[in-house]
């Protein structure tokens, strides 16, 4: 059971990574002058769309989220509606957080907002897919001994590593190397992306490595 789960986890994660790589290369076929650094905001949008799509598709295909058997269409729509609001709420919260954290308030609003979009794509969308708009479950997953499955564990790891990557990405901004990527929020988004990818790679490996020690309550 567990090994199969881990294998499935690995495949889904590889798909996610693949989608990020695709988001780098595919647009250059359609758009002129596309590059990550110069048309950064464009890339941000494309990347978040790709990742969201992959996550949604995976959710529909794999359906790890515990779904009651007889779920009506209306109910599904209801859930997706709630999910949407939840997503925007998270987006708003993240934006506020960045501003509190030192991002400029009025200038670069679009940049800050898109940064919040991509970070919530990396963190909130998988959470929504797996846990649904369920605050209790979210809080449970992100506390000690709170995870109940391989999936939640990987969610924890990828989310934390995305945030860590963002945090680390803020460090080069004040340096005087005068590189184009040392501008808010490019280094942070790059950091977030690297963090997310690293989390995607690490989490199956880590879970596999520690599979003896990990005991989940519900499994």
């Amino acid at each position, binding site marked *: 059971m567990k090994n199969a789960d881990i294998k499935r986890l690995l495949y889904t994660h590889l798909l996610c990574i693949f989608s990020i790589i695709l988001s780098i290369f595919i647009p250059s076929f359609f758009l002129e002058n596309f590059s990550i650094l110069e048309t950064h905001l464009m890339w941000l949008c494309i990347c978040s769309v790709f990742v969201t799509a992959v996550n949604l598709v995976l959710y529909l295909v794999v359906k790890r989220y515990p779904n009651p058997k007889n779920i009506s269409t209306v109910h599904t729509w209801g859930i997706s509606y709630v999910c949407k609001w939840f997503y925007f709420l998270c987006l708003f919260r993240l934006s506020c957080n960045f501003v*509190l*954290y*030192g991002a400029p308030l009025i200038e670069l609003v679009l940049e800050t907002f898109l940064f919040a979009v991509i970070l919530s794509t990396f963190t909130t969308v998988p959470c929504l897919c797996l846990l649904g708009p369920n605050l209790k479950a979210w*809080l449970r997953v992100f*506390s000690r*001994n709170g995870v109940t499955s391989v999936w939640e564990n990987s969610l924890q790891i990828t989310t934390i590593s995305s945030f860590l990557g963002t945090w680390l990405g803020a460090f080069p901004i*004040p*340096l005087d190397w*005068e590189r184009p990527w040392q501008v808010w929020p490019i280094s942070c988004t790059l950091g977030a992306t690297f963090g997310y990818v690293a989390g995607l790679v690490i989490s199956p490996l880590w879970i596999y490595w520690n599979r003896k020690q990990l005991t989940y*309550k519900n499994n």
Partner: protein
Amino acid sequence: LRPAATTRMQKISVLLFLVWVCFLFYAGIALFTSGFLLTRLELTNHSSCQEPPGPGPLPWRSQGEPGACWMASRFSRVVLVLIDALRFDFAQPQRSHVPGEPSVSLPFLGKLGSLQRILETQPHHARLYQSKADPPTTTMQRLKALTTGSLPTFIDAGSNFASYAIVEDNLIKQLTSAGRRVVFMGDDTWKDLFPGAFSQAFFFSSFNVRDLHTVDNGIMEHLYPTMDSGEWDVLIAHFLGVDHCGHKHGPHHPEMAKKLSQMDQVIQGIVERLENDTLLVVIGDHGMTKSGDHGGDSELEISAALFLYSPTALFLRAPPEEPEVVPQISLVPTLALLLGLPIPFGNIGEVMAELFSAVEDSQPHSSALAQATALYLNAQQVFRFLHTYSAAAQDLQVEEFHRLNNLFSKASADYLRLLQSPQGAEAALQTVITELQEFLRGVRAMCIESWARFSLVRMAGGAALLAAACFLCLLIAQWATSPGFHLRPLLLIPVAWGLAGVVVCAGLLATTELKLDPVVLGAMAAMGSVLHILWKAWAGWGSKRPLAALLPFPRPVLLLLLIRFAAFFSDSFVVAEARAIRFLLGSLILLLVAQLHWEGKLLPPKLLTIPRFSAQTGPSRHKGTHALGLGVGLLLCIRLAGLFHRCPEETPACHSSPWLSPLASMVGGRAKNLWYGACVGALVALLAAVRLWLRRYGNLKSPEPPVLFVRWGLPLMVLGTAAYWALSSGADEAPPRLRALVTGASVVLPRAVAGLAASGLLLLLWRPVTVLAKATMGAPRMRTVLTPFSGPPTSQADLDYVVPQIYRHMQEEIRGRLERTKSQGPLTVAAYQLGSVYSAAMVTALTLLAFPLLLLHAERISLVFLLLFLQSFLLLHLLAAGIPITTSGPFTVPWQAVSAWALMATQTFYSTGHQPVFPTIHWHAAFVGFPEGHGSSTWLPALLVGANTFASHLLFAVGCPLLLLWPFLCESQGSQKRRQPHGNEAEARVGPEEEEEEPLMEMRLRDAPHHFNVALLQLGLKYLFVLGIQILACALAASILRRHLMVWKVFAPKFIFEAMGFIVSSVGLFLGLALVMRVDGAVSSWFQQLVLAQQR
């Protein structure tokens, strides 16, 4: 009863131990500073034409000629081409290759072909020298040297820190006062150094090191037109391209070849336009290392090119095979005398005698006499400077000074004798020249010895001492919690070792007959005393404990401290520290909140579905969201405080907050009034918050002096401050007949506020006990009984009446709580009172300190002060939420609390509009209360400016003990809330059995006096450690990066500010801890009184 004498001894030894640790740090800082920051006194005297440099008539050939000053001028015009970082070998002629050797073709070799051509074709008109610059080889210091002829050190004491303008006598000043037209083009550093000195100037920004061409192209655009127009006497062109090319690419880059070729063309163009009365000087201000940097004292950095050329013949002899080596500052007296100007007063350079040989009459005798004359004038001037300097400062060596004195008198006597008999022998002239040169070189060597040399040994020693002190803090903070920890031996033995160190060092110095240097002695004492403990630690370590125990930090805090440590090594991070600190502080706060959540303390367990969580005694839901709110509030406060920022000058794109300027500078009347209202509102809010806090924990209705002061004195202070601000912001608008009143009030009001604050602090020190009485009376039901009691009981009747009542009611209350809160034990109750006692005193003291400090700042900074109090309050609550309460010691303050506190101190330093560079110091603080200035006194303005600059360091250091006290306070607050519904029951009880419950009177911290003292010591050591690694990082950065481009602009000022901040913080910390101990002592004696009265 506890043995009071022992605890007092323990308190004293804790304080002494802290003093000793501080002494270690100070000794390290002093030792490092003495090796790194070389100081020199700047004299403001000026040479003038009318006043000859020495006694006696002006010497030979200098009178009567037009334009002659000390000497007849030989050139009326000079073109000074300053090529930044023109290393000597850049200008050196390329040798013809020796066959057999591989030909080296480096990009910078032989590119200045025009120099080479001139040297070959006109050997008597031109000369190339290798000029030796004195370290520090940074452009600003070099420019100072090249115009004043002195050895600028980093701190030229007496200079005006507010601007970089040169106050010493210099060539530019002499030129302008002689009426010469000085035209400048190039590096805008000159604008800061010589504001308004040029008749025409074209400045270009030197900031962007990566920009090779803006400055040079700008100069070339103006250079030839200006030369052709002829409206100049002295033309200075400062090219930056070579230097920037070095910084960007290094000297071994093809770009350097291009740049040098461009310079070559410039020189070629200038030479073609020169007229006969014009001298061309091409000079590099310093060299560069192989990587293209400069600032230090390596051979490549200090060797620069110096090229002189004139269309008329200058030299008697052809140039030597190998270019002569001259000190760079020799150019100053040479140029001054060649132009017929007085030599700048502070010059210690030696004239290049060769240039003064009169070429036209070409007799060897007369040309030697001319050389001797120039040297003699120079020597007289140097001698005059030396005497003036040694009268003002003591940093020259005495014996050497006497030797030089004798040398000069002998040489001048010889010279005057020669003048009497002009047909003297050639040999005698030569000896005079040699003597004068020997004197001048001796002076220079002596000055270099005392002004311009890093002492690597001292720097390393200082850094080692700082590191040892940090390590010691860490070690003792660890040991302190172990059981059998005794301070006494730890204190006595180091003192003995330290004394031994002093004796040995003094003995050594005495036997080698060196001067006794207090810095070295102090450092030896510190070394001696710390060695013992380190040795003991080394001996006791290996076997018993693993090495990991050496770093007791939680991992995130360790990471945070490491980042903080590493950030000092990058100039960008030092410049952007204001933002970086906010980022780190925000991270730490988020981390604290996340950690609380992770441990399941943030949210109530019922939200978490796992059943085992509910088994734990989790906090209420209220507390959970409370902590989250605290975190968000803190971030909000930090963000708001960040709105008050001053931009470092290195980031031109950034705009400083307009709110940092005083209100008086605002134009709009309405906006000014609104702002004034906001500032007064902040003051009132601060006052109201403090009073509210005190009311919540104690009772403000107590008639004891400090409480009375809080009730009436603080509003008075607020009133005074508000009135002063009103006057100072609108002083110009006052009607004329009120002007005298306004001036008088602006003198009296600040002093009155400061006096009130001081008297309040004294009252607090005198009767801290009243705070206890107040706190004891805090429970609502006791008010009726205790209000009549005021002051110490004066008569026996008073005692008999009052004391038992107090006592009984306290017993009553305690027992009442005891019965309800059995699980927590009786001590919890006492802790509520205790916590309130100590922290009420602390908060009162902090408020009293904050008001005079507030007065020193611009009006709108009061909002930042309000934020400061608010955010420290929030932080304390947040930290308290995460600290488990230990019932009976050992008490510890976690590292994250101490680091957050230190970070917040730095953050407030920036948000009160400060930057660690000298030009941004708030000098106006010196005139608060002294609008007319201070006359000759210097310590008072220094104190005021220091208090303004380090206000946040002081406040946070004094408030440091709150970190220990607050968790106890919060806990009792919680229990108080739960108890309140039962209040009526408790009042009904009567309890007679006092004797039984006597030990219950002890409060939690007081219950374990040993642990309390140790906890205070540990807190002090931890705070010192966090500050200590900052100063250690600064010292290491400054010494490792002493060749860095930014060392004098960024690292050295940062080190100085950090060192001053450390000293202020450590003094504040000491005062804070001493205040807590004073309160503790007062509480003890109060209890003793009470018990004695009971027994009677």
